[in-house]
């Protein structure tokens, strides 16, 4: 069987919808912690969107493990192959870890984990100042790491599309 030439439809749909959701999430998160007036409104978006990203990321990881991605170009330098693979696993790791850390951090801080008015998730950690004091800064630092990884991913995608002009960008941009 020949390797696929494109990511499957589910992978492409999840990629582009989650690209919008995660970028929106990062902007919402960074804005809400410095906002005096809109923290509550932004937080009311941040929590359900984070839960949605977690659920989509689980579907996405399962799809990725069951369906081999299209191969990278054979002439791609080894350092770029390494960076492509490493950055993809960082992206997968962070899109799964960030919502879980957010949920765990709220649990450790004794905050109610409100998804929408009247519906809360249960705590996944006991109330603990020690855990909250670790997880809260970690959530912020990893948020910035995710943002910079996405910027690198975008830059690399455009490099494939406009400089190398190879098949990589099209593998995610269009189907068979």
């Amino acid at each position, binding site marked *: 069987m*020949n390797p696929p030439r494109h990511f499957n439809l589910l992978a492409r749909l999840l990629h582009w919808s989650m690209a919008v959701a995660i970028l929106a999430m*990062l*902007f919402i998160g*960074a*804005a809400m*912690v*410095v*906002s*005096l*007036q*809109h*923290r*509550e409104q932004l937080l009311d978006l941040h929590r359900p969107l984070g839960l949605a990203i977690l659920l989509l990321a689980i579907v996405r990881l399962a799809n990725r493990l069951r369906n081999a991605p299209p191969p990278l*170009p*054979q*002439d791609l330098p080894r350092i770029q192959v390494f960076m492509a693979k490493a950055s993809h696993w960082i992206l997968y790791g962070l899109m799964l870890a960030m919502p879980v850390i957010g949920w765990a951090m709220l649990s450790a*801080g*004794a*905050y*109610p984990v409100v998804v929408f*008015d*009247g519906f*809360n998730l*249960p705590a996944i950690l006991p*109330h603990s*100042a*020690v*855990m*909250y*004091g*670790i997880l*809260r*800064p970690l959530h912020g630092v990893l948020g910035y790491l995710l*943002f910079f990884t996405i*910027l690198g991913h*975008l*830059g690399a995608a*455009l*490099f494939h599309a*406009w*400089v*190398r*002009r*190879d*098949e990589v960008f099209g593998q995610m941009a269009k189907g068979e």
Partner: protein
Amino acid sequence: MATPTPRRGSYLMLLPIAGIVGAIALAFAWNGGWIGNHPLKPQDMIKTVESNGSPLPGFRRAHSKGVCFAGTFTPTPQAAALSTARVFTQPSTAFIGRFSSPGNNPYAPDAKAPVRGMAVQLKTDDGQEWRVAMNSFPFFAVSTPEGFNALNQAMRPDPATGKPDPEKLKAVVAQHPELLKFQAWSKTAPVSDSFGNTRFNGVNAFHLIDAKGAERAVRWSMRPRLPMVALSPEQLAKADVNFLSEDLAKRLASGPVLYDMVMQFAAPGDPVLDPTKAWPDTRPETTVGTFSLTQSGPQVSGACRDINFDPLILPKGIAGTADPILHARSAVYSVSFNRREREISSGKALDATGQKESTR
């Protein structure tokens, strides 16, 4: 199948790529308050109160001195008609809470505290939660967070005199004339001898939402059952540093201390978004329940220490208004909580966690 070698593009195309990536990075940096003109941030307000004294690690940045308490809330039969919140239909709800004194010195003498705070956390069997943060003043000092920050900046002790510069304070009052009313109140308000006979006011307005979805704007307050007993200036001068928590423990040893929670309803046209404007005493009121305090204990080891009494943590059936002070309180308390929990977590808060006796 051999992939045909694609025709390479010019490396000049790196310029638009760098432009796109750079533009998104700049937008993100502005959005996160790192660059450009940003409106007043909660971190700026915390910086103001931190630099007005020398905050101790692990303690709240404001209202640092406090004592924990616990007890039971029992709603009145009238409450359920006003809001669908479970706390008004559940027969009784356990709560924890905290009384506090202003400033960032956790060892300040109680007699010097111009105002007092009371906060409670109620968790009901439907998983909902209500955090209430009240003060002993009947209305807030300024209408906006910017005004409050300017006031705190003006209160900073002048290094030369050790006291705030009166000229700076005058300038803030000129900008925020609503402060005159607060100054007049604080000069004349009697100081009571107990937390248990102090009235506490929610100050900000909230909405109660009933089963039909109708919203009523309210301000809540805690009305002590114990009669007010004012301390004379001579008694205040002699009062023990911690007379308030000592009095509370003594009273609780012989029985619960009770407060009635009263909702005051706004009339059409009453200012809902301005906490400096109290509504007239003639507005209709309903008692929604009784808070019965049964225990108290030091905050260094108490359950109230690691709770952020964010006044926008509300159950279904109660909602916040757009009052800018209310939203700023929520944002600023969060920054204070993050900083002190970090300090506790990293072992820098031995005073705040009771692992070391204070040297102050």
